[in-house]
């Protein structure tokens, strides 16, 4: 082995002192870089295309709206993961065009609608609704959509149509969590026909004046503001008019915890937690939960004479 004397190393090969000292800066920089994604706010969510010709609605609340970022990054959409930020991260695999919605069952004019046809079915309205999740948090969301009743009129239900069943897309290639058995797929929800026909019941295609983000249930979802959020099925591919109450996904998952009605009710607790209060996303103090999520004046008559503890 040749041993070099200091003089054998050409001066050009010697790392200049400044560069040598920069090594520390470089290491510190690398450490900061490694820590950065974990320790800072995630990138703001992308915005979708604007929807044209939206009308205001008398059903809108004047309460402060939950910011777009919170509405589109804090979601329950188990098809894309059970964590709140999972849907925003994973829903990009969903393909919302072409999209067909089969409207069938006890109707005179059963047919398959293309999503772009549905968008022109009725004038689009902005409906600023409160949303109360069964988990105890709430938001105020400016949905864009049209009343489900408008679609129901088109298909002319027969006398046998007592309930409406809503089915979410079932395609594990687009919805990766459907490969797991955390819920029994596809996601199924249901309403009584009078609930479905109620003027508050909305088929939403957008929010904040934009095309519905995938993590919020694009391209078509239900919004039933006086019921817990999970009643409002997302990414709907089938609307089925039936005679008997459908067995919904959450009723199958935990029949003692989730009933068919699932109306927001501060007096009827979830078996494992209280429903008396809620945390409005963005607020520090919890607020009292309102009967029927504050829509009692409009919907209480639907449940007259019913024991809401039995029909939870």
């Amino acid at each position, binding site marked *: 082995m040749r041993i070099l004397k200091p003089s054998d190393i050409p001066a050009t090969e010697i790392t200049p002192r400044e560069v040598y000292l920069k090594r520390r800066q470089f290491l510190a920089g690398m450490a900061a870089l490694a820590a950065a994604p974990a320790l800072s706010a995630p990138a703001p969510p992308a915005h979708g295309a604007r929807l044209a010709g939206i009308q205001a609605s008398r059903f809108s609340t004047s309460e402060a709206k939950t910011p777009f970022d919170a509405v589109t*990054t804090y979601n329950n959409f188990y098809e894309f993961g059970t964590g709140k930020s999972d849907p925003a991260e994973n829903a990009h695999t969903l393909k919302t065009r072409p999209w067909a919605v089969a409207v069938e069952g006890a109707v005179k004019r059963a047919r398959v609608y293309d999503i772009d046809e549905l968008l022109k079915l009725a004038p689009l309205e902005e409906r600023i609704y409160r949303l109360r999740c069964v988990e105890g948090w709430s938001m105020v969301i400016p949905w864009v959509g049209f009343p489900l009743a408008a679609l129901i009129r088109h298909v002319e239900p027969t006398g046998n149509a007592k309930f409406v069943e809503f089915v979410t897309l079932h395609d594990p290639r687009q919805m990766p969590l459907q490969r797991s058995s955390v819920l029994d797929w596809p996601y199924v929800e249901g309403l009584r026909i009078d609930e479905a026909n109620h003027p508050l019941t909305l088929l939403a295609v957008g929010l904040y004046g934009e095309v519905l983000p995938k993590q919020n249930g694009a391209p078509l979802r239900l919004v039933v503001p006086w019921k817990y959020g999970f009643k409002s099925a997302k990414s709907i591919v089938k609307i089925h008019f039936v005679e008997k109450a459908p067995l919904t996904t959450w009723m199958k998952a935990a029949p003692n915890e989730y009933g068919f009605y699932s109306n927001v009710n501060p007096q009827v607790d979830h078996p494992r937690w209280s429903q008396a209060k809620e945390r409005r*996303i963005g607020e520090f103090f919890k607020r009292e939960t309102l009967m029927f999520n504050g829509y009692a004046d409009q919907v209480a008559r639907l449940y007259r004479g019913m024991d809401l503890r039995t029909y939870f």
Partner: protein
Amino acid sequence: MRLPPTLTRRQIFWGKALAWLLCLAPLARLVLLGLNGGLGANPIEFITRSTGTWALVGLLATLSFTPLRRLTGLTWLIRFRRLFGLFSFFYACLHFTTYIWLDQFFDLAGMASDIVKRPFITIGLSAFVMLIPLAATSSQRMMKKLGRNWRRPHSLTYLTASLGVAHYWWLVKKDITQPLVYACVLAILLAMRLPACKPRKHRA
């Protein structure tokens, strides 16, 4: 990397300094995320989950020292156990404070009904209460004072960890993957303490 069979005082000191840094990292992360607006749309839920998780992780880490010592034969490992146990208690305190302050905002009636009616809150609170005497008797002085009797209250750790896992299991809506992981780790740690798994003391 091979670990030495004995440590010098200096090595113990630096080992403990490293353990402190490790144990403070989750808190530092929460503070940094809080300053950068990275706690998400529901920061109080984030803090509650995070502090609860680290209390449980700390408890399981504490329980792993005895089996680890037996597997590796490194007796000095046990000198780091108390530090992890106390940090678990520290995160449990933060978790409890988050619940009564940030989540409930000292709503006594709400908390009382939670404790009576919600099994997951009841067992979570029991687990926390049981940690208090363990933390209080963790000092060298108390160890000397209690002598052989020291071990008895400290076997409560097994129960506390089990309650902690049950607390987590009971609060999730549907996806039990995470609590299941903790339950499995706990089951392994407890199984390693069964007489059948222990090495015989006197061998011919």
